[in-house]
């Protein structure tokens, strides 16, 4: 049995979402739902229990007419790294249902281990995790469009964005067949990235200088992965969640909306992480 494998340097899959390009069209939301067998109910207007792995939020600058401005912000799971893989949700899961992979940077969610305590939902600062209060019901016939690459969930488990990891799994299969040791940038893209008509989402390996997302974000690994791009910011950056989804905006008020700034605090000033 061959066990001599080329160990590739660890990858850190992340996103750069350009809020100047995002139009709030919602294609990413439905692409994700369609790709990942996300269930739906008759009444989805209670947004606290509506399951959308990626959700587009509408921000406003709070100014009165006619100086009002709005901005849309798609929020997938941020795949927080924290400090060496201690994402808030991973740190609290009593069932080891969620885990951080140092090899890919992705926070996984395994439904068969989850017993629905929802501690992870309490821990997640981004409300990126969703609970199946009810068994999913697919209206007659619609179960035909379910993809075999993603496990449908039963009630009582938490689900969240997985950066379409099943696509990585399939891409890896193809890579093996073609004798490639790595999955290329084009071979593994999330459904939301692929669908976005504005090309606002860029996905790839933040560690790989050849990947577009790295070139846009230019993370400073010696400074908590803060982006060197002046337009970039991360959500609640100061909590130290060390997320992998970077947002870009040329509007100061949008960048400022990314964290709970006090009036006197400067935008983007992130204190050094505590150890």
């Amino acid at each position: 049995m061959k066990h001599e494998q080329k160990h590739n340097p660890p990858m850190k899959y992340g996103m750069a979402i350009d809020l100047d390009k995002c139009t709030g069209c919602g294609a990413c939301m439905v692409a994700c739902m369609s790709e990942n067998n996300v269930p739906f109910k008759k009444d989805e207007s209670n947004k606290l229990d509506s399951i959308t792995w990626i959700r587009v939020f509408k921000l406003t600058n709070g100014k009165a007419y006619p100086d009002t401005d709005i901005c849309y912000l798609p929020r997938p799971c941020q795949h927080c790294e924290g400090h060496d893989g201690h994402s808030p949700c991973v740190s609290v899961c009593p069932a080891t249902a969620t885990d951080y992979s140092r090899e890919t940077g992705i926070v996984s969610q395994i439904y068969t281990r989850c017993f629905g305590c929802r501690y992870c939902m309490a821990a997640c600062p981004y409300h990126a995790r969703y609970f199946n209060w009810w068994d999913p019901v697919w209206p007659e016939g619609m179960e035909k469009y379910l993809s075999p690459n993603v496990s449908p969930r039963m009630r009582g488990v938490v689900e969240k964005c997985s950066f379409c990891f099943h696509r990585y799994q399939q891409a890896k299969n193809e890579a093996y067949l073609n004798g490639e040791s790595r999955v290329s940038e084009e071979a593994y893209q999330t459904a939301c990235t692929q669908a976005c008509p504005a090309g606002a989402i860029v996905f790839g390996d933040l560690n790989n200088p050849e990947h577009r997302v790295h070139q846009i974000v230019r993370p400073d690994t010696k400074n908590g992965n803060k982006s060197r791009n002046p337009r970039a910011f991360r959500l609640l950056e100061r909590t130290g969640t060390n997320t992998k989804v970077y947002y870009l905006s040329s509007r100061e008020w949008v960048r400022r909306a990314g964290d709970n700034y006090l009036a006197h605090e400067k935008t983007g000033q992130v204190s050094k992480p505590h150890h």
Partner: protein
Amino acid sequence: MKVDRRSFLSFVIGGAAGTALSPLPWKLMDDSSIWSQMWPWTPVPPDGEATYENSTCSLCPGGCGISVRKIDNRAVKIEGQPGHPVNDGGICILGLSGLQMLYGPTRIKAPMKRVGERGESKWQEISWDEATQILADKLTDIRNRGEAHTVAAISGSDSGTVPALLQRFLTAYGSPNFIRMPSGRDADELAVKTLFGEDGRTGYDVENADYILSFGSGLVDGWGSPVRMIAAASTWKDKNVTVVQVDPRLSNSAAKATRWLPINPGTEADLALGIAALIVANGAADSSAVSGFGVLKAELLAGYETGKVAQTTGIEAGAIVELAQGFARADRPLALCGRGKGQTATSLRETAAIYLLNALAGNINQDGGMWAIPEADYIQWPEVETDTIASAGLRQPRIDGAGAGKYANARYLLNRLSEGVNGSGPYPLQMLMVAGANPCHDLSDSAGFTGALAHIPFIVSFSSFQDETAAMADLLLPDHVYLERYEDVPVAAGLHQRVIGLSKPVVSPQFNTRHLGETLITTAKAMDAPMADAFPWDDYETCLEESLAEKWDALMEEGVWVETDIDPISDTIRVAGMNAPAIAAEGDESGFPLLLIPYDTLRISSRTVGDTPFMIKTVADTVIKGLDGFVEINPQTASDAGLKEGALATLTTPRGETRVRVHLFEGIKPGVIAMARGLGHTAYDDYLAGKGVNFNELIGPVEDPSCGHDVAWGIRAKLAKA
């Protein structure tokens, strides 16, 4: 031997020890945990071979190329087709939802005959043979009485082989009453004919413009070909393109623009003419592009002085001057017309005014400009040989009045059908067929239209879904869904090229449905000679292949045919419609102090197909909450009316009354309230029905005096705390 308590206990302990040392408890624990994780009702999607099949989406006029991922013979995901000339891999929220429509329970699964009262939706399933026979017999009956003209058909489109077959059907039959659903195309076609002198449409090279002046067009809200527009819009910032959005409301398009100019609703034409006046006054106009320039100049300067325009439109004079200067100085300025998704017509005055701006800017048929394109004419069928009955029928006036008298300039006036059938028309209608349209929900004054159907004894719907119009029908002959059929998809939608997409069956028909083209050919063949002769093809696929002729092989291979080398109609325009009165909203200000306008959003489908469960899930809880729909209102206006965020209110217009909740939004002009189009369905299923309010129940048509098109842009309203 004494079998007493001790022995029993030791038996039990022995049993316990043995059980613990046997696999039973451990295996049972493992099995129970597996059992509890795998309830039989949690689906396990079957695996299989993954393949991709390309086709063309036809859920909106945009014409995007799609790539459908299948597992064995099940379609599991719709994606945008990379490299496609229209959308290059991108896809919109509606396109992505196609599989919920294909596989969902709102499908009409077989031909149906109505039992019970109309509107009760009680059906009896019948065979296709029986259904076609019923239709053929009814038609023959009417025809033999010399009343062929009393049969009408409503169609979502009039281009492509299927609508052409429907038109041919009526022509051979002897009815002039082929009526297309109202849309921005009505205004565009009339403007092109009037201004450029020939039949055709406009196209816009938005990718290459450097100054875009949009008069309410939903640039990223679904105007034109939605994915193409969003893709173009995402490049504008980096290319320093100036985008000015003239809009009473901070739509997503306005938010993405460089500048938002909140205008008084309905005064876009005045603004356009005011800008034209300034451009002309500054000597910055391309006078060669407009015939009768001298007269035009005089009229503009006399009638559209900046101060006056400022007052009419509510936009500061200084801003109007900036606009005019910016537009004129830009290298490749472009003005766009058609509010929201462009599903309603703009008046000739407004359309002409905006096209005039393009002419004055010298961008007609230029890079980054507006193109005047003759219609694609690839369907070359032999002329229909009409018999006496048909000729007599075709000579009758149209039931909607289009093409004659004061409506001479209009081709289709569906907004006048209710009037036509309720007694004041030239004759009663005996049959109505509806294909690719849902007028009972989508037409302005939808309730009035639905009520008028009581005057039509026999209604046939070809809809694939149980929509509002199908609910009012007597006979259902369900068409395949687009993913199940071959069809040509000619794309207009603001493209400056001519594009024909090919829709291919990605899955075999899921139910007992039949291609509409097939139904028409079969029905015609079941009727007497003149009908059957006009349909010489064996089946629809033969018809399609013949019609596409030399393009067929390329289309089967590539899925799309693009013609870029087009001879535009003309580079110059003549002016028209300027002196027409402005279009006012119905209602008097004293009784109805507010202005209610509709808004379009990509998340809510407002034409033909209704939102799928996925799409409705993305709608915010400030648009729908439970079953309640919201109106957007400026906080100042709300406070004047004593309304707080989320409060229930009664919304009344001259046409209807309903209950709504209010959402306070700073991004809307005071005095103006806005409601999303596309909600308030009563048909479909519980995932959509009953949610929100149908805007079309609150508004009615306002006729453009030059042609009769419904050009209502809003209606006066009042809001009272409920």
